[in-house]
């Protein structure tokens, strides 16, 4: 789920307004996480970083304390009372059917290594591009889905 930083716009809005009186709902903060290598010095830092990794729309790389690495999409996390009881679950980038579980306590390093697939894709960006292409006389203007190969 979201961290307080990501939800700050909504929290600020709700501090002043009743949900039923809100005209335009606040979105959430988009953090630039691509390429980030968080410090994992304290338990709190580990939890916060893994919460952001859970929210991230790109692959991450986890280095375990035994030196092995897992690269993939972190699709789930289960938070327990201790780091030993808390797990992330990752679908490795080379095996779509595997779901690898890793205890928070086994994680030595984390990197937001994959591209953030949600970055930069706003309506404003689309509309600006649209008008530019229109002015240049182009037709059938569209955003193409990502190439998968």
């Amino acid at each position, binding site marked *: 789920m979201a961290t307080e930083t990501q939800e700050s716009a*909504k929290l600020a809005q709700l501090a002043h307004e009743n949900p039923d009186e809100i005209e335009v*709902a606040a979105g959430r903060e988009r953090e630039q996480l691509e390429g980030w290598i968080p410090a994992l010095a304290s338990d709190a830092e580990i939890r916060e970083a893994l919460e952001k990794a859970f929210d991230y729309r790109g692959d991450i790389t986890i280095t375990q304390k035994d030196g092995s690495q897992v690269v993939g999409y972190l*699709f789930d996390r289960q938070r327990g009372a201790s780091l030993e009881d808390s797990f992330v679950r990752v679908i490795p980038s080379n095996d779509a059917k595997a779901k690898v579980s890793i205890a928070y306590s086994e994680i030595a390093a984390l990197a937001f290594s994959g591209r953030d697939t949600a970055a930069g894709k*706003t309506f404003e960006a*689309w509309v600006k591009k649209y008008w530019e292409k229109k002015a240049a006389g182009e037709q059938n203007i569209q955003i193409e889905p990502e190439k998968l190969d």
Partner: protein
Amino acid sequence: MAVPVSQAWTVATYVLKQKMMGRKKYPLVLMLEPLFRCNLACAGCGKIQYPAHILKAELSPEECFKAVEECGTPMVAIPGGEPLLHPQMPEIVAGLVARKKYVYMCTNALLLKEKLHLFKPSKYLSFSVHVDGQREHHDFSVCREGGYDIAMEGVRVAVEAGFRVTTNTTLFDGADPNSVRAHFDELMVAGVESMMVSPGYTYDKAPDQKHFLGRARSKKLFRSILSNRKKTWRFNASPIFMEFLMGKKDLTCTPWGMPTFSIFGWQKPCYLLQDGYADSFKELMETVEWSNYGTESGNPQCANCMVHSGYEASGVNYTFSSLKGLLQTAKGIFFSKYEDEGAMKLLNEWKPASYGPLVQIGAPVTNSASELQEVSGD
């Protein structure tokens, strides 16, 4: 009736059976997501932003059937991604129809004409075509010029071939109620069985985070659209849910009403929020702290939500909870045009955004050149 009598009967007996069994939390529609990849890239969509290896992954027919049997709902909606990109979709749909499930296959219809011959018309199968408004509105919403014409061609071809066809319209900030009403007229002329309409939601994962309707504006918008209804319009939604959208009824969220199953497992807690995954439906129902969700919970993530996946089941539950609920629903279906002078005034005085079909067109542009490059794929 907006749905066949057999479907209404199946749903009614299912709900009554759950109530007689004393079950307080039961699902109504399974949201089955067999894949996330799509042939559109709408800025408002939060479902398709994943690395390529996730977008290439898909559920097998067996995994789909297991999920359907686990949760036991009489209706299965298949959103996505775009389901028609799944090579085994005809097999999945045929398997669900054989199990006598009422299937709503959600599609942007770009491939509908081409793939229609792979499906058989059935009272159990309906194509739920995503059309977000009249031509200009839809094209902007799906970020593709010409998208509307292809979708409507898909609708016409499917209707002519004898399929049940419904539509699904999502409205964001900047929607023009007069245009939405004209859109309903166009859909009815095209021969669709019924229409569904829902406000967009501040979906955490959507790249665009600026154009979501708050509850107050949603209610105004839906009151002006859905009051003073035309006789020709048929909706695929519970009348109580639609009264909720119009601000005439308070409902609390039923987050377990439309559970979602995808390549990740059972999504906690609802179709819109991703707070982790369970490996079985039973685990989903038993491990989610349900009181943490719904607008009334104070959870900021639920604050503006009025979408059908949370509140349609609440409307159905309201209908079957008392004689009053049944009578109000019957009145909504058979007698009420929801005449409302105030709503008519709202409609007549509504100022469409002067700069074009969507509010986004006039919004200040702050994005960097690199972001724009990413959007266009240049």
